[in-house]
């Protein structure tokens, strides 16, 4: 029988439509602008008291919060409008002080019955909700150089133990060169080194009055070091982002040496950059005594008083890497201090050294690796050069009263902010290799809201125009196409919500474009039906043939577009990806709605009836 569908096909259509509508629904409930309150260190928690203080501060300033909630250790205050959000953040931050992190947030407003079905709205991309996007590059050469330097000191240690004399050593261009005056020493050390270090390729060359042993890391070793550096940095940055208290951050590796960080809702990029890119570390060293030889001590200035210097030992007791946790508080006289817990090894080393040095002074040295970027002209082209430099300064110099264990505190910091950042860095670990910011994007919340509004408006208008066009051109069949088109929009949005895709501005453009192109299949089918009708074919036969003949065209055309969308996805980054995702899903859903659903509606309406005329 022509133009009849078996029951199961109708059921499939209804099922898909029902799922589509349910999972698209949460997107109709706009997210509430909110401020999220969490404690700066894991040990503390936000309580109802903090929340109450924040609320009353807001109310005093004339901002009436929509609601408040306390989930475990974080608090959430929902607001009624976007404009209040920044102001509210400043107010709450001032009220609650430095040990509380206040972040901008968009809070889910999905009704409970929808959430219980696992439905949730699409995540909004940075361009729609505001926030910052960083792209960081890990300095691979520096990672290799650091490893070589560590190896160099270990090798020199071995040579000293074996009493082999070398004239000099230097690390240059990924090569460690050791100069010997004696060929025997060279071959002896070569066999010693190759016994302990498997990662080197050796090369010998003669220079004036001696010979040089060049050690170069093998390609596999270099790759391992680089992989390690990127992964280690990824972990560290993830820790730091978590410490920033941002909701739904993204930290992702991109390509061999880049890391992408997206922080929705963050507006203060300066602070975020300082924390993400910081390479600060601490070193604990003893102060030099009067009889310390000059070759074993160094002189550093105090950070707070540049004029004052102190001589301290070159030997490092422990560094910040041995810190297992750190938090900030204030000392008896109200100055900021950092409380430190050391890990097991660090604690026992500290205990051993300080026990033998009671009465001496211990210095805390603050070390920061920084780079200057200089643009210079070379051969008529602009070349960016990065000049690394290290800043070292004393934070404190205090007398050791008794043997220290694995807990102690550091005072002498400039400000509570510095104390907070130092403790954050000590907690999150140090970077394995320097990183540079190669890209930075900031989208303010006002621009984001504007983008959403104009995006929604163009989807609505686009839909309306297409609906009117189809009605005018295909009459009753136009209604069928319009129902299919609307269903397509719902299913597309549902699919994107279920896949957890992020909606970006180009994504919205993709939806709008899909609306225009989705009716293509219907147009093809209807035109074909008209054509068959012109050949005086019986009407039912014409509908049947129209659907059948249009099918191969539709499939061929859609598959090629899909291929392009997939390529778009695989090469694209950020905005292009968002567009590609929407376009691909839109093609798939439109094939379902335009072919199967519109056929279903037509069959249901006219199947089995005798037809005199088709309204097409």
């Amino acid at each position, binding site marked *: 029988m022509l133009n009849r569908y078996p029951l199961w096909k109708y059921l499939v259509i209804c099922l898909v439509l029902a799922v589509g509508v349910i999972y698209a629904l949460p997107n109709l409930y706009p997210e509430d602008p909110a401020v999220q309150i969490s404690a700066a260190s894991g040990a503390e928690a936000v309580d109802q008291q903090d929340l109450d203080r924040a609320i009353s501060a807001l109310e005093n300033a004339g901002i009436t919060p929509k609601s408040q909630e306390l989930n475990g250790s974080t608090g959430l205050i929902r607001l009624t409008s976007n404009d209040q959000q*920044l102001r509210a953040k*400043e107010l709450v931050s001032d009220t609650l002080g430095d040990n509380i992190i206040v972040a901008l947030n968009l809070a889910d407003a999905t009704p409970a019955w929808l959430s219980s079905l696992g439905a949730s709205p699409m995540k909004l991309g940075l361009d729609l909700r505001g926030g910052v996007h960083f*792209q960081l590059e890990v300095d691979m050469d520096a990672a290799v150089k650091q490893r070589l330097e560590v190896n160099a000191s270990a090798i020199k240690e071995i040579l000293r133990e074996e009493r082999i004399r070398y004239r000099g050593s230097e690390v240059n261009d990924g090569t460690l060169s050791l100069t010997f005056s004696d060929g025997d020493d060279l071959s002896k050390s070569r066999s010693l080194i190759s016994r302990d270090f498997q990662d080197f390729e050796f090369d010998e060359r003669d220079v004036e009055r001696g010979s040089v042993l060049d050690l170069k890391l093998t390609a596999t070793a270099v790759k391992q070091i680089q992989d390690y550096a990127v992964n280690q940095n990824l972990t560290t940055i993830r820790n730091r982002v978590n410490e920033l208290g941002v909701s739904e951050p993204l930290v992702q590796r991109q390509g061999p040496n880049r890391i992408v960080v997206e922080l929705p809702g963050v*507006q*203060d990029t*300066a602070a975020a950059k300082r924390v993400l890119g910081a390479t600060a570390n601490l070193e604990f060293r003893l102060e030099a005594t009067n009889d310390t030889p000059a070759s074993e001590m160094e002189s550093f200035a105090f950070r707070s008083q540049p004029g004052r210097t102190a001589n301290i030992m070159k030997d490092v007791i422990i560094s910040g890497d041995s810190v297992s946790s750190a938090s900030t508080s204030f000392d008896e006289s109200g100055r900021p201090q950092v409380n430190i817990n050391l890990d097991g090894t660090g604690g026992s080393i500290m205990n051993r050294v300080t026990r033998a040095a009671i009465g001496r002074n211990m210095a805390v040295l603050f070390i920061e690796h920084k780079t200057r970027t200089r*643009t210079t002209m070379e051969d008529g082209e*602009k070349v960016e050069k990065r000049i690394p430099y290290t800043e070292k300064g004393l934070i404190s110099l205090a007398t050791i009263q008794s043997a220290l264990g694995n807990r102690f505190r550091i005072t002498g910091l400039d400000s509570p902010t510095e104390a907070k950042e130092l403790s954050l860095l000590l907690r999150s670990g140090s970077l394995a290799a320097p990183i540079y*910011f*190669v*890209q*930075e994007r900031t*989208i*303010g919340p006002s*621009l984001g809201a504007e*983008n959403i509004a*104009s*995006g929604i*408006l*163009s989807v609505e*208008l*686009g839909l309306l*125009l*297409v609906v009117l*066009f189809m009605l005018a*051109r295909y009459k009753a069949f136009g209604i069928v196409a319009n129902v299919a088109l609307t269903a397509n929009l719902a299913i597309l949005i549902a699919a994107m919500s279920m896949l957890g895709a992020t909606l970006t*501005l*180009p994504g*919205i*453009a993709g939806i*709008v*474009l899909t609306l*225009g*192109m989705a*009716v*293509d299949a219907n*147009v*093809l089918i209807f*035109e074909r039906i008209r054509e068959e009708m012109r050949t005086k074919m019986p009407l039912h036969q014409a509908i049947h043939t129209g659907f059948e*003949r249009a099918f*191969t*065209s539709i499939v*061929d*055309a*859609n*598959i*090629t*577009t899909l*291929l*392009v969308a997939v*390529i*778009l996805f*695989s*090469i694209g*980054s*950020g*905005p*292009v990806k968002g*567009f*590609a995702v929407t376009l691909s899903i839109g093609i798939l859903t439109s094939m379902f709605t335009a072919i199967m659903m519109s056929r279903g509606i037509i069959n249901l309406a006219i199947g089995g009836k005798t037809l005199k005329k088709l309204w097409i």
Partner: protein
Amino acid sequence: MRQFDFMSKRRAAFIVSIVLTIVAIGALVIHGLNLGLDFTGGTLVEVKYQVAPALESIRQTLDAAGYKDVSVQTFGASNEILVRLQQSFEAGIGNDIVAQLQGTGDQVSLVRAEFVGAQVGDQLRDQSGLGMLLALAVVMVYVAFRFQYKFALGALISLGHDVVILLGIFALFGFDFDLTVLAAVLAVIGYSLNDTIIVYDRIRENIRKSRTDDMPAIFNDAINATLSRTLSTSGTTLLVLLALFFLGGDMIHNFAIALIIGVVAGTFSSIYVAAALLLVVGLKRVDLIPPPKEQFEDGAP
């Protein structure tokens, strides 16, 4: 239904296409694409006002001072302003901009001046070019596989035609070419191909059905049969693109322009260029219907 004789006008259409393509290539060579911040890298300056200023007046001040493609937005607080510039990084640019803004009598201070890495842009540019070529190649292989290599050649040239004209117009008018526009270009490849495939599909069907070798007549039939579909779909697509163009906001403006140009060029090329090219590459009936092999009677008992 009126039948248009498209094929007899193919010479005129070719001349139009060739002239457009030459103008486009000329514009690309002479002006070059006005690559956006995504591809070039660029400069970013953050300033702080004592009182929240009007963004539009800042834009006008900087425009008047000769800074091109300035984008101005608030940054965190409403009195902190972020200015992005197309030009490459110069050491003093932050202070220059602050000086310009202070000229209008406001109290302005420089917060920072930074740049977006240029090598990121370079890489993106290479990657994008590669992606475009890959898209064309994959599509060609698919068409060659589903149809025949002569169809693939025709599709490729007509796609190239659309893309070159689109890029040429962008170069000619100096529109910003950024990542979203690149996405639009790739979408145009998809769209125009869609159109071309529909026409080709009909040509294939008609060749198989007909008994003549009169290719221009067959092509005319096929184009006429698909014409109302081609125009309807282009129509609905253009309608939504116009909605995007007028309402989508600044960030999506160039994206909409690119697609509008692409849809118009794609419609034209799928009607005139793609089918006419099949005549140029010499498509014959035998290309789709292999001649029956001569059968020999098996003489063995």
